[in-house]
């Protein structure tokens, strides 16, 4: 029993470090760019607005990573989803609701196929999703090689629907009260986060995912249906990837082949920084949220600073990834020692 308590301590300690890092980064940002408006509530909300899609995708990635798998196809799936949305609305004349439902179904099917290959044929998740990545990116080019901008009015009204918040406003020079706002996509992202948090923590399906990731053999011995649970995890993840793509598309309102390249690495890095172990069995969607927010803050730094190349985002994230991975391995080593 005591051991269990200690184990939780190690993992929640990592989560605390992640949150602390975010807070420190943000405070530093406020200190450095106070005059440019870094301290405004709106700037904080912008983190959620520009990363709503990534939050949903990182949550899905966390689920798969807890099972001990990985999905590197998500970036390409986002590109494919955006392209399908753009093409069906602009070239085929579909309605916004129809086409949104359609892409979510595609996400489910995509997850189903990948999940079946991983769970039932026991092919490495990395290889399966590598092929998935190729497939989705290529499919995007098959649909259209040109960029398509979305002009569908219903879709644009979703994208531009500002929801004003009742707090955090300020009065500008002209004496007008400016309220901070968010978009519907932020609400969807947060709802997804909460739902998945509850599912992982309190449902049988959620606990089975942790059990399988922790030790597949003993999960099997306990009578869990390992294959079916894995399949479900990938289906859920495929759905979340397409939902994330939809939210992403609400931000960009266009579809093109090179879209969201490298997004899968952002999602994986966010999860790892948030304390998810790539060995499986350990992970938390709240941590992944903070992983995404840290990435958003670094991006905001670079935008506010103005002169740094955008490549610094990648390098900083890699450095942070390195830090957290080494930290994780130190914790793991300490745990091993205690066991002995």
């Amino acid at each position, binding site marked *: 029993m005591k051991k269990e308590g200690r184990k939780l301590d190690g993992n929640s300690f990592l989560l605390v470090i992640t949150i602390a890092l975010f807070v420190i980064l943000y405070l530093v940002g406020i200190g450095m760019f106070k005059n440019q408006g870094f301290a405004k509530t709106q700037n904080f909300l912008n983190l959620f607005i520009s990363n709503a899609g990534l939050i949903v995708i990182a949550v899905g990635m966390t689920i798969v990573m807890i099972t001990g798998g990985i999905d590197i196809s998500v970036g390409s799936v986002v590109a494919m989803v955006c392209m399908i949305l753009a093409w069906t609305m602009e070239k085929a004349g579909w309605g916004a609701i129809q086409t949104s439902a359609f892409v979510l179904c595609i996400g489910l099917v995509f997850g189903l196929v990948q999940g079946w290959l991983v769970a039932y044929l026991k092919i490495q998740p990395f*290889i*399966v999703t590598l*092929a998935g990545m*190729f497939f989705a990116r290529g499919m995007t080019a098959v649909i259209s090689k040109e960029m398509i901008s979305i002009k569908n009015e219903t879709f644009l009204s979703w994208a531009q629907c500002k929801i004003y918040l009742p707090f955090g406003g300020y009065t500008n020079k002209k004496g007008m009260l400016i309220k901070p706002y968010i978009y519907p996509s932020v609400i969807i992202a947060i709802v997804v986060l909460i739902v998945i948090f509850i599912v992982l923590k309190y449902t049988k399906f959620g606990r089975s995912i942790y059990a399988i990731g922790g030790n597949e053999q003993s999960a099997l011995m306990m009578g869990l249906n390992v294959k079916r649970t894995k399949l479900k995890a990938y289906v859920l993840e495929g759905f979340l990837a397409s939902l994330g793509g939809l939210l992403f598309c609400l931000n960009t309102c266009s579809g093109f082949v090179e879209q969201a390249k490298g997004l899968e690495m952002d999602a994986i890095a966010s999860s790892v920084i948030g304390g998810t172990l790539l060995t499986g069995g350990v992970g938390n969607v709240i941590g992944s949220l903070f992983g995404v927010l840290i990435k958003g803050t670094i991006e905001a730094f670079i935008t506010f600073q103005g002169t740094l*190349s955008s*490549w610094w985002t990648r390098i900083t994230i*890699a450095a942070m990834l390195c830090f957290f991975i080494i930290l994780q*391995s130190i914790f793991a080593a300490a745990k091993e020692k205690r066991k002995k």
Partner: protein
Amino acid sequence: MEKIKKLTAQRLFMPIFCLVIMLIAAVIASPDFFKIGVQNGVLYGRIIDVINRGSEVVILAVGMTLVVAASAGTDISVGAVMAVVAAVTCAFTAGGQQSVNEYINSPILGALLGILVGVLCGCFNGFLVARLKIQPMVATLILFTAGRGIAQLLTNGQITYVRVDSFKMLGASIPGVPIPTAIFVTVLVVVLTAVLIKKTALGIYSADANNIGLNLELDAILAVALGGNSLAGGKFSLLGAVIGAYTIQTLTTTLYAVSVSSDQIPVYKAIVVIIIVSLQSPELGRMIHRMKAKVSASAGKGAA
């Protein structure tokens, strides 16, 4: 029947079988696939193209096989490391300028520096994996993320050109020799590795300064898998990886030959790879076996 069984039981049977099928498909798709001509004193033709272009994938696949075998993990950073090495070599040789028509610094020194950087990247990955016991995929994720950023910083986000004939030699061909140079480099690397492997398991990172390896890590990993090497580590075959690499390259060249555009190629690659990997999966065999048993059982019941 006995003989056939013996043949199919060979480790290299599946990879070679895949390559042969691929080549047959290539000939059906474009009948002049095996035609070899001579252009500007260099052998020319689709099959030569496959061997030539396949060089990078072969070299990477050989390195990847070692990594997979030794650590049961994949190195996903190879493409990014290639980008860094290429950036270092070109930036040094061009003396930091964007486009040069003669060497500012010695190209041999540049290449050595590039390889040194590659080895350093390998050391970094190796240290994380071997000493800190971090999963290979996670450890190499760091360089995968950072590599391209570093490369872009080194070249200021521009493409650096080295327009000197002797520099192009490695990428094209040595005057008077009809075989593209890259093939020599490939053979050298494969032989060297094969010799080295007998004594120690070292990861070799090599890079061609002409091409920045976008998506190559994926090709390399696929080549290893196609070569019949289990990605779970343990037993491995270098030859299998080489065959796998050429299989992938044949596929790519064939698709180009039937004029599929380069950004659509991945769709076909993905489908072919999934089919091949599924066929290699022992689970599928078991599944079919079980289904057969079920069918015959129900047939038996019907008879009774």
